[in-house]
């Protein structure tokens, strides 16, 4: 089958240009009415494309056929973002936070999305990463990059305390275990004096790599970038690595194994009969997810140089988990998109701060009732090239039995 190469590339570029233009417009416009107008416009565009099956199918196919090109152009855009936003360092910081959220959400996606392990205690593991990095940096003065790794590893180690409950309990019992864990952890942090108590850890030194301090401005080709761009680029590097890792895991037999032991998409009993070591694979999924979450936590404490118990609550865990639910369970692009939304929207709607959580809850409920597959439903794995020719919409979406 002949592929209309140029047509595909143009389509991809067009889609990316429109969506990123809208996104940057939302970020930079300060007038709230205009922001709402842009969001409305975006919704109308998305709704229109969604309604026309032909247009939707050709866009999806274009992205599938030229996935590398799409990925590369996305990469160029996100690399260029600090240059576009260089007059507003605040948004560069928020976008860095968004990347951290993407990392956390990808970790939870491995646990909850792929393997079906409900983790309502993600904030606790985030906290383990953040506190480990903070404690080591302030008390021992270890280098930040080492602390990042240590935070992630520590989060894995702490996660292993929950291995036995993980193996012994299912669905809402496991949910209760993780909730109890994060609540106990929050209580502990609030009261343990050696961990800074309710004040948390202050004065964590900012990130620096091999003597290069991250609080310096960047100068490239006569352009000055605010110091926040340093954090952005490092977070971006980690984020891209972890997205690729997540993608490779998802698209391999490992991801398939996780789906097999997932209560929603798979069947644990059949998986066991087929020789899948279900316990081992759930532990692996849980540990890898905690690595992601802990890494993001450690980065966070080196970015804000401050971490305290109010960041580590059950509610925060639910926010993290909701990125997976909103974006699409087991769908990597969806999860990334939702994580960005969940960081950027409340920042943009600061004026409505006290109503935001209420609306967030309502959106989550509506999503769970009406569109359980999420913003971007998980894709079907493609194992043979020829199968690519079949339009995606003609097949039953994965997880439709949910």
């Amino acid at each position, binding site marked *: 089958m002949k592929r209309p190469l140029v047509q595909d590339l143009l389509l991809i570029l067009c889609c990316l240009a429109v969506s990123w233009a809208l996104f940057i417009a939302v970020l930079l416009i300060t007038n709230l009415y205009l922001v709402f107008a842009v969001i409305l416009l975006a919704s109308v565009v998305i709704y229109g494309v969604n309604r026309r099956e032909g247009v939707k199918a050709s866009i999806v196919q274009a992205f599938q056929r030229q996935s590398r090109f799409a990925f590369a152009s996305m990469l160029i855009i996100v690399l260029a973002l600090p240059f576009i936003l260089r007059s507003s360092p605040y948004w560069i910081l928020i976008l860095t936070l968004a990347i951290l959220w993407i990392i956390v959400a990808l970790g939870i996606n491995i646990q909850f999305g792929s393997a079906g392990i*409900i983790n309502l205690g993600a904030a606790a593991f985030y906290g383990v990463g953040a506190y480990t990095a903070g404690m080591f940096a302030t008390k021992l003065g270890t280098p930040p990059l080492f602390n990042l790794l240590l935070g992630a590893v520590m989060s894995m180690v702490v996660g292993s305390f*929950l291995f*036995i*409950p993980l193996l*012994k*309990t*299912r*669905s*809402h*019992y496991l*949910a*209760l*275990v993780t*909730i*109890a*864990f994060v*609540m*106990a952890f929050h*209580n*502990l942090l*609030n*009261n343990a004096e050696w961990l800074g108590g309710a004040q948390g850890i202050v004065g964590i030194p900012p990130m620096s790599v091999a003597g290069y301090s991250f609080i310096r401005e960047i100068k490239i080709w006569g352009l000055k970038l605010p110091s926040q761009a340093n954090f952005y680029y490092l977070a971006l590097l980690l984020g891209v690595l972890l997205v690729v890792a997540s993608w490779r895991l998802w698209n391999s037999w490992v991801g398939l194994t996780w789906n097999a032991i997932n*209560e*929603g998409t798979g069947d644990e009993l059949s998986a066991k009969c087929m020789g899948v070591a279900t316990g081992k694979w759930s532990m692996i999924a849980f540990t890898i997810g905690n690595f992601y979450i802990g890494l993001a936590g450690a980065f966070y404490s080196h970015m804000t140089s401050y971490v305290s118990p109010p960041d580590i609550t*059950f*509610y925060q865990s*639910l926010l993290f*988990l*909701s990125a997976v*639910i909103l974006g699409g369970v087991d769908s990597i692009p969806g999860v990334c998109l939702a994580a960005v939304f969940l960081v950027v929207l409340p920042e943009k709607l600061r004026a409505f701060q*006290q*109503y935001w*959580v*209420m*609306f*967030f*809850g*309502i959106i*989550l*409920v509506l999503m*769970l*009732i009406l569109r*359980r597959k999420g913003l971007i439903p998980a894709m079907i794995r493609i194992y043979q090239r020829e199968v690519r020719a079949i339009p995606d919409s003609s097949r039953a979406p994965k997880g439709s039995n*949910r």
Partner: protein
Amino acid sequence: MDTILNQIIHGLMLGVMYSLVAVGFTLFFGVLNLVQFAHGEIFMVGAFLGLIILNVLHSFLGIDNPALLLLICFAGSSVLTALFGLLFGRVTIRPIKNAPPIIALLTTLAAGISIRFFVMAFYPAGSQPQNFPGYLPDWQTEIHGVQLRFDSLFILVGGILLILGTYLFINKTRMGIAMRAVAQDRETASMMGVNINRVIDTTFVVSGILAACAGIFNGLYYRQVIFDMGAIYGVVGFSAAVIGGLGNIFGAIVGGFLFALLASFTSAFIPGGSAYRFVTAFAFLILFLVIMPKGILRASRGKRET
């Protein structure tokens, strides 16, 4: 010895409140086979409705008789909370009746958060703790070094009466028997002519009344209510229901008292323990789930999926 007795009384009083919430969880799980995580928020709504009723009666209608005030407060808040629960059930639970358990848990959790922050945003100065007027007499006495406060005794007696009432309702009335039948086997019950939707509505009403009373008890004892008090009660109530065995009413009561006694003993006997009472309580819960995942009293039914 005296401290032990004092702690036991305090624990029993807390246990009454935990049990009332836990019974709600267990009823939902029995009848609907799902975890209704917004129950803690219904408890909070009950307390706030009670507060509003008290304030309205006192400042607008000028009623000063504490007994009458409390009576109207309990009755009014129970009715309104039951209605609220009913509405909540119709809007969020009905559409997800057949969803996997974890989806139901997340949906109710999110709905609960909406309710919580709705109260914060729309109750005047809602983000601050609200004073709950103490209409109970300040009477207290000491018997052999054991302090007895009137409000503790009131809560203890009132809570036990409520629990007894629920027990009688579940076991002796037609509707209660229908509820147990649905809990055992929904399909068979509906074939026998039980109206499932009415049973579900009744569950919301009963648990709403219990939660409202628990909320007012909580307000009367601590003299203040705050918008996020449902969060901890939700988790504790759920934990108590799980410890007792989800779906078993008697188990939920036992679990509630066990959890409360554990928390109050930790704060009494471990040095500096009062700050860590939830750490021990939740650590105990996790251990408990590992050792006895089905709770102390398994639900008495033939088949059960976890």
